[in-house]
């Protein structure tokens, strides 16, 4: 005891600095060496699929003992799997519905915890040759729905009905979208169709990039998907808001909500109230809700969570607050 005190007293400033530096250098190494293992499985959204795989890859790079298993067939697949206990994580591009929540509570005895992890918007896009630039929400409804719950626009059969002329006027409209398992489908139905019914001839494809690819290869097509998917093969349309101003799904318009079809992307967790997340799940969320994890979001074409929402999400999971220094935590 006395020896140690003496040693500390005797240590010079230089020595202390070295110790600190060494400790700082070792910290990440120690974190890497932490004996984290187990299986991290996730079921759910296809929109989030790219993000989940990227996060998963990073997690398993950090903790090689961890086995990451990601299924991403659509948001709709998450609630049944969560309720049946077939997964602990459910990635969803839409909030759970009342019925799904009730089903979960009936099976698990407590409500699931929704953690927002990124912002997204439903984008509408057409073939890159298509001269159309903007659409209003009632027009979107008329394009995709049989019902008219939002507006009164008559059915649109030809591109001419949307004001295109020349060759385009008599070209038919081909519609592409996601299947019912998808959160994009459900959200589009709720927000753009006001809860109405899709036309029966809207092609339902099992993946967002398939929608983009199909629209990119068909001149007459229009489709919808999440923000991270459109490529140079298609042209993203601006949506006119209530005042008639066209809004493109840009970063700012999504964060401010001025683009009409914005949404958060969630990861639902089966976590009983009062319980703490197990270490592995904590590590995962710590990564996702860190600057590194949010950089992945931006890289995939989505919008990272604004700082206050990020902090709130971390608080809800009882993760340590982020130091407000934008450090690069990659290698």
């Amino acid at each position, binding site marked *: 005891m006395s020896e140690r005190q003496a040693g500390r007293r005797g240590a010079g400033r230089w020595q202390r600095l070295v110790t600190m530096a060494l400790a700082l250098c070792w910290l990440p190494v120690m974190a890497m060496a932490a004996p984290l293992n187990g299986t991290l499985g996730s079921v759910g959204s296809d929109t989030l699929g790219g993000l989940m795989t990227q996060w998963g890859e990073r997690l398993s790079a950090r903790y090689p003992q961890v086995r990451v298993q*990601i299924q991403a067939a659509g948001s709709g697949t998450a609630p049944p799997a969560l309720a049946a206990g077939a997964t602990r994580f459910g990635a969803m591009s839409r909030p759970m519905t009342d019925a799904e929540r009730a089903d979960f509570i009936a099976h698990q005895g407590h409500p699931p915890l929704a953690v927002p992890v990124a912002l997204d918007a439903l984008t509408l896009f057409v073939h890159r040759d298509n001269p159309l630039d903007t659409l209003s929400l009632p027009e979107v409804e008329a394009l995709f729905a049989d019902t008219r719950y939002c507006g009164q626009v008559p059915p649109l059969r030809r591109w001419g009905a949307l004001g295109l002329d020349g060759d385009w006027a008599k070209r038919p409209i081909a519609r592409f979208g996601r299947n019912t398992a998808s959160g994009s489908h459900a959200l589009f139905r709720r927000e753009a169709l006001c809860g109405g019914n899709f036309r029966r001839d809207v092609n339902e494809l099992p993946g967002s990039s398939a929608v983009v690819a199909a629209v990119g290869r068909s001149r007459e097509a229009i489709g919808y998907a999440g923000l991270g998917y459109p490529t*140079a093969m298609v042209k993203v349309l601006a949506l006119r808001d209530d005042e008639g101003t066209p809004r493109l799904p840009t970063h700012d318009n999504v964060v401010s909500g001025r683009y009409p079809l914005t949404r958060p992307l969630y990861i639902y967790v089966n976590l009983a109230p009062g319980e703490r997340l197990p270490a592995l799940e904590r590590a995962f969320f710590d990564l996702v809700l860190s600057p590194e994890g949010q950089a992945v979001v931006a890289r995939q074409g989505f919008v990272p969570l604004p700082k206050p929402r990020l902090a709130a999400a971390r608080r809800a999971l009882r993760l340590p607050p982020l130091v407000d220094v934008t450090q690069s935590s990659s290698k």
Partner: protein
Amino acid sequence: MRIPRLSGDGVWRWLSGACVALSLLAVVALLALVVTRGLAHFWPADIEQLTLDDGQRIAGIPRGSQAGERRYFTANRDLDGQVWRWVEQQAIESRGTPPDLLYVERRDWGPFIGRLTAVETPAGERLQGAEAERRLRRALRGDADVTTLHLRNVEGRSLKVAFAQVASLSWPNRMDIGDKLAAWGHGVWRFLSETPSDGNTGGGVWPAIFGTLLMVMLMSLVVTPFGVLAALYLNEVARQGPLTRLVRIAVRNLAGVPSIVYGVFGLGVFVYGLGGHLDSWFFADRLPSPTFGTGGLLWASLTLALLTLPVVIVATEEGLARVPVALREGSLALGATRFETLRRVVVPMALPSMLTGVILAVARAAGEVAPLMLVGVAKLAPAIPLDDEFPFLHLESKFMHLGYLVFDLGFASRDAEAAMPLVFATATLLVIVILVLNVTAIILRHHLRARHRALEHS
């Protein structure tokens, strides 16, 4: 000269011949498309640099054209926000393949196309020009250290990339055929041996290869004994009557039941039923994280075993039926019991058919995707289910599968268009695996039939 007329006979001959030709043509075209595009994926294609009439400069790999426009894969998603560029043919002022264009596969942002300006070494040195390139080449071989690459795209925008981010790097325009072949081989090897990265669009497919093979192996471990036993029962033990015939027809018909129905059964009975119970009995401490109560290797193998049982049963029965009765009677007459006759005489003779059945079952199982989508295939599961951790073989874990990867990359990767070559490569691999299995079965059957014929005649 009298023009000869084609007789009715001739017409039918040629028409039916056309059917053969068309069927073969379709398959050959399909295979050729898949295999060539799949293998071409690894070929380091030349990078073109274009100057447009408005002064813009573009570097990219040409990927098809349409209605006066050419499509280029320009990479650099971080700089341009896009990896594709459509260029009007008329707008192209000049085209060339400058030798110093660099193609970098990065772990984070996908590929980069541009030029190398400098490299940084751990010592803080900044090397430029030819020296930088030499140093980089040595670093790639592992002889020297480089920390950061300074890159510039053709428009002049520069960026820094950490060396650790570089998955591979080449100057394709400078390569001769030999270099390109070597790079191609290296690419194929990486594809076969690495785990996927960058949201499955980079790296390799090793976990999927392993997952497919392991799942099929487990399946054949289950299906072989049970299929053979069931066939033995139906053919040798059960009393031959209308009931047996009915059962036989039923089993045979189950081979025609859609695979997705087996998937439904697997999900309902194995995953939700059996799995849920196993979890609550043996793994209650891990709940709510499921162990067996979710799709996994075991359930997928069992489901596919059920699916392929009829194949094995039918093939084995065929083999058993071909064993001459005289041999059986001879064996029994010499005092052997029925079991001994089976073991020593009948089964060895029918062994080839059993084997054929199992191989056919394996070939069928390797190509099935629909039921797997319900019972345990994953988009990403980079850790293979066999490791040094107890119990070594992780039956409960989800796995990747080549067939599902084809579906997933084609429909649900980030950019289906960019992933297309990778899909072709994966599809090629899948087709090769299945063809090898099938060819084995066909050759085996051929040999065995010949042997049987000899036996029957002797």
